[in-house]
């Protein structure tokens, strides 16, 4: 199966119905994408497929053929949102953080609080109460 992974061509020989999450973590060695529930509820496995935030635990590999997939590793370590999450302590235990940042990447610049709350409602965080995450995303 061929697709673009973090800007580079990828060709993975896995079952077409394999979960994208497992392919990323085990075939591609990108363990920054996390599994929190396996049922599409927690959003820890959020990645971008053609720019749209999706739960990679619900997506079969076949679905991304020819698509552009971006994981947390694709942001490197110097994306302004990563910096902001560090500065505002938007990450505590950190397990939701990659998924949270990938979902936040799609919000554009200076989103309103109402937009953030609606668009991140599929990303659970049990540590922060979300306030520090809002502060990170809304940081000037």
């Amino acid at each position, binding site marked *: 199966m061929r697709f673009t992974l973090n800007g580079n061509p990828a060709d993975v020989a896995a079952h077409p119905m394999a979960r994208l999450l497992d392919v990323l*973590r085990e075939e591609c060695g*990108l*363990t*920054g*994408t*996390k*599994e*929190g*529930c*396996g*049922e599409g*509820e*927690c959003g*820890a496995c959020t990645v971008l497929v053609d720019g749209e935030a999706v739960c990679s635990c619900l997506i079969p590999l076949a679905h991304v053929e020819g698509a552009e997939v971006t*994981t*947390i*590793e694709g*942001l*490197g*370590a110097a994306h302004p949102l*990563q*910096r902001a*999450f*560090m*500065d*505002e*302590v*938007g*990450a*505590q*235990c*950190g*397990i*939701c*953080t*990659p998924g949270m*940042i990938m979902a936040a990447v799609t919000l554009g610049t200076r989103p309103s609080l109402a937009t*953030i*709350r*609606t668009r*991140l*409602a*599929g*990303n*659970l*965080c*049990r*540590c*922060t*109460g*979300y*306030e*520090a995450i809002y502060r990170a995303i809304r940081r000037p």
Partner: protein
Amino acid sequence: MADRRGAGPGERYAVGGAVGRSVPRKDGIGKASGSARYADDLVFPGMLYGRTIRTTIPCGRIRSIALEFDPAGFTVVGHRDIRGRNVVALLVDDQPCLVETDVRHGAEPVLLLAHEDREKLLAARVAVVYEPGTPVFDPEHSPRSFKDLVIEKGTLAAGFASADFVVEGTYRTGHQEHVYIEPNGVVAVPEDGGIAVYGSIQCPFYVQQALATLLGPAVSRIRVIQTETGGGFGGKEEYPSMLAGHAVLLALKAGRPVKMIYDRAEDMLATTKRHPAIVRHRTGVTRDGRLVAMAVDVVIDGGAYATLSPVVLARGAIHAAGPYRCPNVRITGRAMFTNTPPNGAFRGFGVPQTAFAVEVHMERIAEALGMDSVRLRERNALRPGDTTVTGQRMGQDCSARQVLRAALRKSGYHRKRKAYAGTDRGIGLALYYHGCGFTGSGEVRLASRASVELTATGVRILSSSTEFGQGTRTMHAQIVADALAMPYDQVEVALPDTSLVPDSGPTVASRTCMIVGGILERAATELRERLGGLPPAEYFRRHGPLKVTRQYQQPEWIRWDETSFRGDAYATYGWGCDVAEVRLDRDTGEVHPLRLTAVTDVGKAIHPALARGQIEGGTAQGVGYALLEHVVMREGLMANAQLANYQIPTTLDTPRIDVILLENPYPGGPSGAKGLGELPMNGPAPALVNAIRHLGLDLRSIPALPEAVLEAMCVSR
């Protein structure tokens, strides 16, 4: 930076300047970039996957077990493979690591399987034939208790004789599931002559000690290494000892590494939860609002094995009369057996249950008196010099009235209380406290140790305190940096590996900053003296390695009697007051939390942003506990063990949280700091239910689901 010369003891912290500042988290970049390694991210050559075959009935005996698959390529472990003692060693060694014949709950481990192919592993079938027994699910009708206790102060009968009113009530709280976003998981790796366990673990030495009991003398080298841990909240305090035991048994038999990561359903079904509680209050009060007699009975549902229930009960009971002074108190408590998976540690450790009860009860006392409930609390709140139910005299850092007043002011409570009357909005508050560190003589028994050693570039902290989000590494490094008057970024924190770090006790009980931070501060101060004015790296270059290890020293004034529950139950207490504002949807019964104002006195916020984050996060967990989180039990098992059916607060369910930090220092803590982690869990539930009460609805149990609210609306009409 302040001038170092002539700095007095009180100014020492200005020298390094890390304490009190929101310095960068030690673990920030790894977590934001996805490079931090959690248990499931580890891969070892030849690694197998492990699976647990569990009981399917809540009570009975196992008659036979039959494998219904081709065993080629499988490693199979039963209780006969255990060479040491078949127990998960903790307080009471009653829980087997693998069931032999007696079944006490419906998710007990019976048999362990490992295979390199997960699909084959999941497809394997095992037939277990049972002789069913009669289960007990109601803790109030259980014939067995794990612990009974009585705490007495004054004379209850005399107190009631002097009362003008007596107010009674029963309050109930449900199970709560931790929902750390990373489920429990470990990898066991055979090593030369022993075994290593890497895992999502709060207390590496608990696991190490449990494994030593399980494996016996044949395996002498056991080391436990904490990986990055995706949340704990108490849920990874005792359970990892069970899971690590399973992985280790498989790995030793197979001679290969074994990874066991629970999926969400297994984690919710089989691991511990917060104890459900039934709390009965009978309170005597004078016409002018003085509490003169308090009788409180606390029953908690322990589940099928003791785990930590006796100490959860003790902490809950000690806090059961609330942060109030009352001359005559009798608190009784029981932790009961039921045929359900054992309940265990969860942030707050028994206090969220009893704090809910007493704070809703205070509201009802005020109604009975026709008195404003704030005045009732003002009148009775503990002040310096007052004594608690155990006879502990409050020090100058007792801030009950300060947090109450600040919360009223910051939230505009009195104004809103009037303005919301007759609308669909309500406002309510709760006053609470939380003892810091282990109860009673627990800290003396732990005798925790921690070290600071020189490195080529600075110093390294060696302790078994684990980081699972709270900021352990960062906060410890701040304390050590300032004690050594050196830059924060030259302080490293060693990975908790039981073969390399001293036993600093478990990372629980709001003790990691105040207790372990205090030990590290002493170790670092002594190290500084021994450096004779040289910077650490320079001393290391000239003289080589140097390490200072210190052990916990109990303050001399602490007195505690374990049998009578008399004396200083905790070295000190953190204080909080929450004000909750809600909107009621009268058509659906849904209660929408609008705003939570949380005023907290933690003595000193070592890292203000981390402290704020702890309070915001604990408050959100309290919102879930109060309004959303409902563990549905059927035949002794969680019936809704999925995140789709057990709802924790999302962004849309979590209200705005305003945090106000007060800093009334505790002289015994590092820079005056007290414990913080658990405190914010205690207030939101009673504050929210008291806000619902402001709408005229009499609720006395949580979660306050729409069904319960609608029922209360029918009654109130």
